Every structure is written in C-alpha cells, then in structure tokens.
C-alpha cells in the first residue's frame, strides 16, 4: 500500500478540498448562529405560561431528538420541498437548494438540542433571579433576556460546546443530498484517483483539527465567562 500525495498538485483536487472545507465551515457557522438564536427563542417561549406553546416546543424538541439527522435532512429536501408551491420549487431547483435545505435541517436540529441544554442551565439557577428581575419591574421578556438567559447560557457552556462539536460533525450528513462539503469531496477524490487513504486522511485531519479548535474555544469561553458564585 503506497501513500502518495502528489495527486494534490495534479488536477483540481486541492481546490476541491478547499471548497469542501469552506462549505463545511459555512454550513457549521450559519447553522450554529441560527440554531443558537432559535434556541433562545424556544427557551423563552417554552417558559411562557401558555400550555399550547409549551407543548409545541416540546413536540419540536422531541421530534428533533428522536429522529436521525439524516432523516431530518431528507424530510426537508425530499418531503417538504414537494409541498411548496411549484414556482418556489422551480426557483429552488435552479439555485443551490441542497445547501439551504441542509442548513435549515441542521439549524432546527441544533436549536432543539441547544434549547434543552440552556433549559437545564436555567433550571440550575435559583428561581429568585427571575423573581427579583420581575420585582424590579422588568417585563417577562426583558427579565428572561437581561437576567436569566445570560446566566443560564454561561452555565450551559460545556453542554453547548458538546453540541457545537456534534453540529460540526453533522455537517457531513449534507453530503447525502449532494452538498459538496468535506466528506463529499473526499469521497469524490477517492472515486477519481483511488487514493482512498490520502483523501480520507486529509478530511480526517481537517475534522480533527477543527474539533480540537472547537473544544479549545469552548474551554477558553468557559474560562472567560466564569461568573463568581455560579457553580
């Protein structure tokens, strides 16, 4: 078994790999931001006293936690796209719809998990925090937004970092619908050059480096966000 990386110099493969890396990172970053913001919204809505809203949130989270990520992506790309009006469908087919659908599926998935992580962070806060904020005259939303959520998020940093890691790895699922992210590219290169070992090694190193980076950022942010007295 010989190992030979020269194929990188011949042909477009290096460019492919870079594009693949960028798509992975783009998918990750966009899904993370959208997922996080949506998670905050879900948390706020879930805590409201309206039972219907609570149950909707529970259903949302339940669906995303019990159905595989790949199936969620399929459901959006094959299932829901079919329900859209024909004009939308044509427009979507003309552009890079795979990326968008993968992004939507991953964002919602991440939002569901993150909302649970933040909720446990909130549960570990003494309820007096919220009461004090309300007693000072803050509305429900402002009390959540200014007092409860910032603290809860800090407590939740470790599980959130885990979730970020999970999201990053889940971007590879997008290859199933044709998004040319890193895993897809490495597979393509393998198909064309038969250099399986080299192609997969490069992709693996990429994923590992980014994983360690994410864990490092997580550790650093946990360190920086340490509030005195928060366990």
């Amino acid at each position: 078994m010989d190992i030979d990386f020269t194929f990188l110099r011949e042909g477009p493969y290096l460019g492919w790999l870079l594009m693949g890396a960028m798509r992975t990172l783009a998918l990750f970053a966009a899904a993370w931001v959208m997922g996080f913001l949506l998670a905050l919204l879900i948390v706020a809505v879930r805590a409201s006293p309206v039972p219907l809203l609570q149950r909707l949130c529970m259903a949302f989270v339940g669906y995303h936690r019990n159905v595989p990520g790949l199936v969620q992506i399929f459901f959006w790309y094959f299932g829901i796209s079919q329900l859209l009006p024909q004009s939308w469908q044509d427009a979507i087919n003309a552009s890079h719809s795979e990326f968008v659908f993968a992004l939507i599926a991953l964002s919602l998935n991440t939002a569901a998990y993150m909302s649970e992580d933040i909720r446990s962070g909130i549960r570990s806060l003494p309820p007096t925090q919220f009461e004090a904020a309300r007693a000072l005259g803050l509305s429900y939303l402002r009390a959540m937004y200014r007092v409860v959520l910032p603290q809860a998020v800090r407590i939740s940093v470790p599980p959130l970092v885990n979730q970020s890691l999970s999201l990053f790895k889940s971007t590879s699922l997008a290859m199933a619908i044709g998004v040319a992210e890193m895993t897809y590219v490495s597979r393509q290169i393998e198909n064309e050059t038969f250099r399986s070992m080299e192609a997969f090694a490069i992709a693996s190193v990429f994923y590992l480096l980014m994983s360690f980076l994410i864990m490092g950022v997580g550790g650093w942010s946990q360190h920086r966000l340490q509030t005195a007295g928060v366990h």
Partner: protein
Amino acid sequence: MTDIPTILYDFGLMLLLGGYPNGPVGGLALTLFLAIMGLVCSFPLAVLLGIARVSPWRALALPALALTSIVRGLPVLMLIFWAYFIVPLMTGYSVSGVTTVVCALVAYETAFLAEVIRAGIQSVPRGQVEASRSLGLSYVGTMRRVILPQAMRQMTPSILNQFINLIKNTSLGYIISVNELTSAAYQVSGQLLTKPFQVYFILASFYFVICYSLNLGVSRLEAWTARSAKPQLART
C-alpha cells in the same frame, strides 16, 4: 396525508423487513440488528478502554485518550468510509456493507461508551478504593469487585442513551447502500415517485416511536434507581 395508511399497508412489510423473505433482511429489522450488534460488540472493548483511560500507567492512559479523542472527533460518516476502506485491507476479503457499518458503529460506540464508563468509574468515591486496597485487594481486584459494580449501576441510563444514538446512526448505512430502514424508505419513495412527503413522514415516525419509547424507558429507569438508592433512614 390520507394516503399514509395506504402506503403503510402496501409497503409496511418492506420497511420492516426489507427484502425478506425474498431477499436478505433489511428495513427496521436490520436497523435494530445493526444497533444491537454495535452495542454488544463495543461494550467489552469500551470497558477495557474506559479502564485504560483512568489507569495510573501513562503508557496505557495516553494512547487511550488519543484513541477516544480521534474517534470522537470524526463524523460517523468518515468512520464508515474508513471502515469501508480499511476492513477489506485488514481481513483480505471484501466485506459486506453490513459488516462495514457494524465495524464503524463499534469503533464509534467504543469511544463514546469508554467515556461513559470512565465517568462512571470516577464517580465512585475514593474512600471505596482506599477501603478495598487497605484490605489487600489488588488494583484489578478492586476494579472488578468494588468499582465496576458500583459504576455500572450509575451508568445504565447513559448506556441506554448511547443505544438510542446508535439506532439513529444506523441511518447512515443508506450512504453505502445498506438496506436498513432509511434506505428502504428511500426505495419506497423512489417507487411511488410523487409522495416523498408521506414516505418520509412515515420514516420519521418510525424512528420517533422507537426512540421516544426507549427514552421513556430510560426516564423510568433513572427515577427507579434514584428511588432505590435513597438510603432508608437510620434505625439505631
């Protein structure tokens, strides 16, 4: 939406059993088979790896840490591709997709379970180790008789959670054409052509029902262990 029962009627068996009895077992049956094989084969390896992780001998602990970190830092899909490539190389035969997926899942699950076991081992109070060693038990004896039995009790909910994750991860078999539940649904959708929403709705529901029920079971188990672990109050 009204065609869902029809689809279930027409294709339910295909989703549950794949090609059987006219072909190899697939569908949900294969999904469960893959998940169970993944858990059962990875468990003993995970125990060894978990013990290695907490070992005081660095020659054991550091490689264990490296191994778990690498496997956990890669997407499951990459593990499947690696397995697809490496396993035939190691065994000399070409292997089926099912074997490949099982190998990848075992590798993945071993790394994650090892962390669960490590946490379980480290959650046993140090006093237990001191008492056991003071009686003259060796490191191995202490692990076998004092630490692992107590750790296992703590870890059962986490192990079951990992099993639920395994079930979800079997869906990746689709990528290398292993005919588990997701692949079967894809084929059904391909046959019907105009009803992808209904088919994928059914697919999601299958997974939902299974995983949700297992999750309920885990919650019940956690509640039960919390209740039975509460010491009955002292009677002098």
